């Protein structure tokens, strides 16, 4: 069983959803982001998304754009990101790591070689924002051979018919983009999420994680209880950005502040939905 499947199975046995925090590789430098990655599981991360910085993140909001710029400025490359995951894997064999990013750096690396190297580094899955199933033939076979899951994004705009098509190309879990928009801007209402989930459940047996617009511990707990996991990204990157000095360098505050926020999110996800909220 893959790390992703094993993790969702054990969480289901515990009766709770997953907290899936995001970090941008090399943000604001390799050492800090590697230290953050290594510390995330103990802070309560059940799965981890690692962003691969790209020069033109056209589906991302200002917070992730800025993080990607910092990562690139710090020298992020795809080989560098894979080396970072390999370093993490020396200490942690269980926590699934999913790489998230855009297609062009992967195409430049070469699809076969990238999948082989990513699997060797200990990557479990890929989320490629600008690769719909229509174009995915370039990577589906090498990913499958390497044992990498291709995690599909689906959106409120995805029709039932399209949902079936998209999910026939999915593995690992399904990432439900809960809003129409870019990352870190709007937040979906609980009502919208509750409406959306049955539609997804009817179309797939894979676990469903909700992302885009989850900011507070309460929102994370709600999403993780309605679905099988909550992805939290922009709010963590915003906290990290706040701790940087005037030159954009990490400070003594950087790791503690981000980890503290992850701990608060994890505590809420583990506690489940507050009783007062059950009926809302």
């Amino acid at each position, binding site marked *: 069983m893959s790390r992703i499947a094993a993790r969702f199975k054990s969480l289901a046995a515990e009766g709770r959803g997953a907290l899936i925090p995001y970090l941008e590789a090399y943000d604001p430098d390799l050492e800090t982001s590697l230290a953050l990655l290594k510390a995330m599981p103990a802070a309560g991360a059940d799965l981890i998304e690692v962003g691969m910085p790209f020069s*033109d993140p056209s589906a991302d909001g200002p917070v992730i754009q800025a993080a990607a710029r910092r990562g690139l400025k710090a020298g992020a490359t795809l080989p560098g990101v894979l080396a970072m995951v390999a370093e993490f894997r020396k200490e942690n064999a269980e926590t699934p790591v999913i790489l998230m990013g855009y297609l062009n750096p992967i195409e430049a690396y070469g699809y076969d070689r990238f999948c082989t190297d990513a699997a060797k580094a200990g990557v479990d899955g890929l989320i490629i924002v600008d690769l719909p199933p229509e*174009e995915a033939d370039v990577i589906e076979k090498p990913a499958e051979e390497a044992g990498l899951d291709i995690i599909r*994004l*689906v959106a409120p705009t*995805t029709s039932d018919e399209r949902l079936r098509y998209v999910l026939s190309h999915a593995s690992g879990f399904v990432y439900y*983009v809960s809003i*129409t928009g870019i990352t870190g801007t709007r937040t979906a209402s609980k009502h919208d999420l509750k409406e959306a989930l049955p539609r997804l459940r009817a179309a797939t047996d894979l676990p469903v994680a909700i992302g885009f617009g989850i900011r507070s511990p309460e929102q994370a707990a709600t999403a993780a209880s309605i679905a099988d996991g909550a992805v939290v990204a922009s709010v963590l990157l915003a906290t990290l950005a706040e701790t940087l000095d005037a030159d954009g360098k990490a400070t003594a505050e950087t790791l503690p502040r981000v980890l503290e926020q992850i701990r608060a999110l994890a505590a809420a996800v583990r506690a489940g939905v507050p009783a007062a909220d059950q009926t809302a």
Partner: protein
Amino acid sequence: MADPVEHGITANQANSLRHGPDERGHFGGWYGGRFVAETLMPLVLELEQAYNAAKADPSFQKELDFYLRDYVGRPSPLWFARRMTEELGGAKIYMKREELNHTGSHKLNNVMGQILLARRMGRTRIVAETGAGQHGVATATVCALFGMKCVIYMGATDVERQSPNVFRMRLLGAEVVPVTAGAGTLKDAMNEAMRDWVANVADTYFLVGTVAGPHPYPAMVRDFQSVIGEETKEQMQAAEGRLPDVVVAAIGGGSNAMGIFHPFLDDSSVGLIGVEAAGCGLDSGKTAASIERGRPGVLHGNRTYLLQNADGQIDEAHSISAGLDYPGVGPEHSWLSDIGRAEYVGATDTEALDAFQLCTRTEGIIPALESAHAIAYAAKIAPTLPKDTLLVVNISGRGDKDIFTVAEHLGVKL
């Protein structure tokens, strides 16, 4: 798989080069495509359906023809450039006068087609990206004409160097949003327009200005611009009784070039030359020549030649012309380059400035700096060609907007 050469030509294109793209939006099985976030996929598919329906509906073409004639001012003349021909002493130079269209460039051909489509689709809000501002002005113009809400994304650098166009857009009622990300040029404006579209899917139509972006944009924009080549073909027949020998056009995204090339693709006697902006020189590191100095990759919804580093990060382009300052190119051009049907060359900032003055001085036509790149290459090859060679250069826009830039480079204070 990632080798474009093996995808060069497929069986169904063996008889005609004008049938592309395939049903996946691929040219030659590799370039183009639909590389967008899932949130946008339903919209891109809906647009394709709507465009196919419009194309099959004679009333749509009739409506478009009416606006092209009475509002855009088509057909545009094919002008024999006698003095420039004499000065260069070689090929007979004709100019396709797209700068005479309403709003001063070829951009309105495409914009008029797409705004009619957006209306058919019931959209009420238009977003667009712009570089030099020509596409932004054209878009703001039709939004004024049809009373639609209009938001134009423009790089902050371009806002500064194309201030007359910014003012024109605002006069026309558009909201112009300066984009400060990156170098503040066309690439960044494109990113921001895509973000707006993702966030406002319900009422918004993304009016792409060039033959790039996810399928069906490259094919649709080409179709709307092909009126340039179709007219040129007829007009040259009328003037000279035969087809031209060489057609030269400037390439940023490549819409004016695709529009004049496409009707000639199957006429193998007609040489097609796309002139990219070489900036400070093809090997200066400050260039916008995506085909000559880039390699295939994926950006802004399509696979095409891109200026990028070894790690697949997109480079900043450079050109004196804001309209050519883009690190990519339309995917059909990438394919035409690979199969050798069109030739792609470069003209530098300096060559474009010289050509700008040559055209102004000899023909009394002030061309856009974009078009000046095509004139520069035409002026370079014309003296080497026999006097009976028929050379058409596409004057895609007029240069009033560029006089400040040109004055600055000539050391003149306005």
